[in-house]
């Protein structure tokens, strides 16, 4: 019973991680490299779990969001830089989510001029009209829809023996395509916004330290389910597109290409999954940004507040959704370039966030007895360093092509 009331933040954060960009990356990884990146996904899952656990622990122990703590520990300047990067990265990612909505609905023959405004209104009303408990329930239900990808994976009828073998045997190919995908996989799975969202959502629940063991289950389970889904996306495209040597560039391509190989239902399931992921992302990213900014600057925040109570919170949320949706509707906007730029900003932000998190979680004044143990610190720092190297490469890679 307690578990049920604690459940939510971890599962939701991890699932939203499989957003429009994530699905595209997994689909392309499967199509281009077959089962060759599955082992990397499992490694990344482990890293993600380590980092998410830290964010959740800080949320429970301090009852504050990550930007709160950054503000209180590092002052205004560091906060401002972090916020600016976060706002920019999240805003462009929100654009990507609406692009996902447009692509998914176009597979069903719906024009983006209908689907995007409809999705924008839907997510806007959800937060402006409803309270947090209701929104959280909707999000949890939406997480179940991700299992459509698992179904797609089975429909693709892969050689399971080989899949399992490849998943546990690390193998690196030193080709530019492989390395780029490897880094993109890390970049899309471990993102800065997740740490902010997870910590705020956990803090908002007001859990006591005795209940932390349940939060841990929530976090680990969420990470597992998320990458379980990602695993099946890779398997689905690897078994079909890779096997037939079909190259794709987007998630919508993947859905289209699946149809002749795995049947119409595989395509429909893939498209529904993409739509669901994009709508979820379009809701959670603006929400997460609104929380991060208002908390650290001392403005009122919370989903259950009205425009009058929390003007900055609701205003920021509305602004994000408006810009996100509008960017898709403007013809001729270089969306691909914006996405690439967004990835770069996230790439710069991630090491900053990781270092700040590690400093905070080892600060006894903040965490008391719940600071990282030496063992955890070794794991966390090596995770952070690997991620930093990867993101530096990710940021630099467009310049070498």
């Amino acid at each position, binding site marked *: 019973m307690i578990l049920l009331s604690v459940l939510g933040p971890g599962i939701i954060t991890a699932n939203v991680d499989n957003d429009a960009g994530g699905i595209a990356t997994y689909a392309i990884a499967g199509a281009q490299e077959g089962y060759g990146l599955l082992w990397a996904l499992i490694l990344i899952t482990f890293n993600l779990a380590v980092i998410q656990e830290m964010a959740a622990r800080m949320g429970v122990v301090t009852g504050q969001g990550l930007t709160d703590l950054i503000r209180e520990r590092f002052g205004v300047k560091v906060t401002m830089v972090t916020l600016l990067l976060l706002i920019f990265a999240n805003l462009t990612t929100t654009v990507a989510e609406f692009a996902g909505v447009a692509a998914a609905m176009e597979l069903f023959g719906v024009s983006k001029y209908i689907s995007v405004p409809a999705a924008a209104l839907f997510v806007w009303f959800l937060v402006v009209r409803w309270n947090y408990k209701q929104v959280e329930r909707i999000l949890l239900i939406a997480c179940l829809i991700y299992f459509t990808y698992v179904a797609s994976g089975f429909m693709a009828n892969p050689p399971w023996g080989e899949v399992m073998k490849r998943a546990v045997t690390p193998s690196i190919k030193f080709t530019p395509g492989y390395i780029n995908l490897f880094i993109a996989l890390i970049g899309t799975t471990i993102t800065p916004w997740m740490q902010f969202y997870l910590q705020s959502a956990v803090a908002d629940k007001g859990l006591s330290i005795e209940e932390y063991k349940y939060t841990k289950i929530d976090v680990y389970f969420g990470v597992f389910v998320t990458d379980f889904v990602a695993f099946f996306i890779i398997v689905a495209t690897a078994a079909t597109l890779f096997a037939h040597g079909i190259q794709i560039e987007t998630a919508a391509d993947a859905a289209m290409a699946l149809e002749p190989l795995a049947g119409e239902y595989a395509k429909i399931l893939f498209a529904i999954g993409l739509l669901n992921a994009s709508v979820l992302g379009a809701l959670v990213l603006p929400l997460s940004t609104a929380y991060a900014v208002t908390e*650290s600057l001392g403005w009122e925040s919370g989903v259950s507040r009205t425009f009058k109570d929390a003007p900055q919170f609701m205003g920021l949320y509305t602004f994000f959704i408006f810009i996100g949706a509008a960017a898709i509707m403007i013809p001729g906007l270089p969306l691909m370039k914006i996405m690439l730029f967004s990835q770069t900003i996230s790439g710069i932000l991630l090491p900053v966030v990781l270092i700040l998190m590690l400093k905070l979680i080892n600060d006894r004044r903040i965490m008391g007895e719940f600071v990282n143990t030496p063992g955890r610190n070794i794991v966390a720092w090596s995770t952070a360093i690997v991620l930093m190297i990867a993101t530096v490469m990710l940021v630099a890679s467009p310049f070498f092509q």
Partner: protein
Amino acid sequence: MPYIGELFVSELLKKPVLDKMGEDIGVLTDFILVPGDTFPKISALVVSRRKKVLVIDWEAVKLFNRHIISISIRESDLAPREMSEEEMLLCRDLLDKQIVDIDGAKVVRVNDLKVGEFHGHLCLMAADVGLRGLIRRIGLESQGERLSSFFGYKIPRNLISWNYLQSLKPKLTRLTLNIPRHKLSELHPADIAHILSQIPQKDRAALIDTLDVETAAETLEEMGTSDQASIIEELDAEHASDILEHMAPDEAADVLQDLPTDKANDLLQRMEKEGADEMEELLSHEEDTAGGLMTTEYLSLTKDLTVREAIDQVRLLSPNVETVYYIYILDKDEKLQGVLSLRDLIVSQQDNTLEEIMTHPVKTVRADADEKEVERIISKYRLIALPVVDEEGRLLGIITMDDILYRTLNHTKGKRG
């Protein structure tokens, strides 16, 4: 005492400090506070050079302004020391932290702090909680001002004087104890509840601790059940049971229901016998039935009283009950005989007996009736309160309209998120 005027902390931090010989001994990093008359006094400066921390008594400061800070002793006279958690430090404990703005009844964040001279001492005067403070912190105040005046906009000043602020950290309450002034406990309980909803869980109990029991109880009544329970869990058991006793019994029972069983039992044991019995009776009902919704505090009289005697009784009993609009007439077995409204009582002849003016039969529900049924009867007969009875017609408690209204509203919009 050097002339000071008024200064913002952000303009002073990181400024070099010179000793008697003009040697640079480090940069200013913090201030030590002690309680003062109205405003906390600054008793010493904290100066750091790399890892070394020096504390300089205010008496030794010669020059103190935004251009130069110098002291009248030599560096060699000062011994480095560590700062302890017990000490109250201006920057470490206040700057960038959340604080309660009593006047605005909300939680704000301290962007900057203003110090100045008061009764011949350097004191903490005010907190800047506005945009201007933020811009000043990143060192762009004058540029920001030029930019905004170009657009014909003035960046608003948002300074709150220290005597309208209340810190959330228990150790800092010493800084405000002897000030006769606006206090948190003078706010409306609904405002205090709103403030509590904005601050971290661990600070909530501490803030509740600063309130008197009566206000604490009223504040908790304004919050959602799960928040109530988590606060009660944090408080020490004696204080928690006191607060529960002061709450409306139906609210208190809801809180107990949300707590772990052994914690709830412990709190029940600490309550006075009468209150504890009432609570156990309420707890024996399902939460969303009439029994779970009712409160056991109501006005009851016997039918042989005259109106005059009844009014005296109402006057006497009213402090202990939630609503006085209905007076229930009970026989010696507590069976419900009839009901009177306050209006009936006031407009009737003084010498009439209650039996003559009471209404009966009375609209009632049984303890196991569900919420919908209660809602239906209350709205159909436009009642302010609805009595709950057992099989034999004995009065168990009443459900007041506001409780039902609250629950109905809660289905559409939560108390907090």
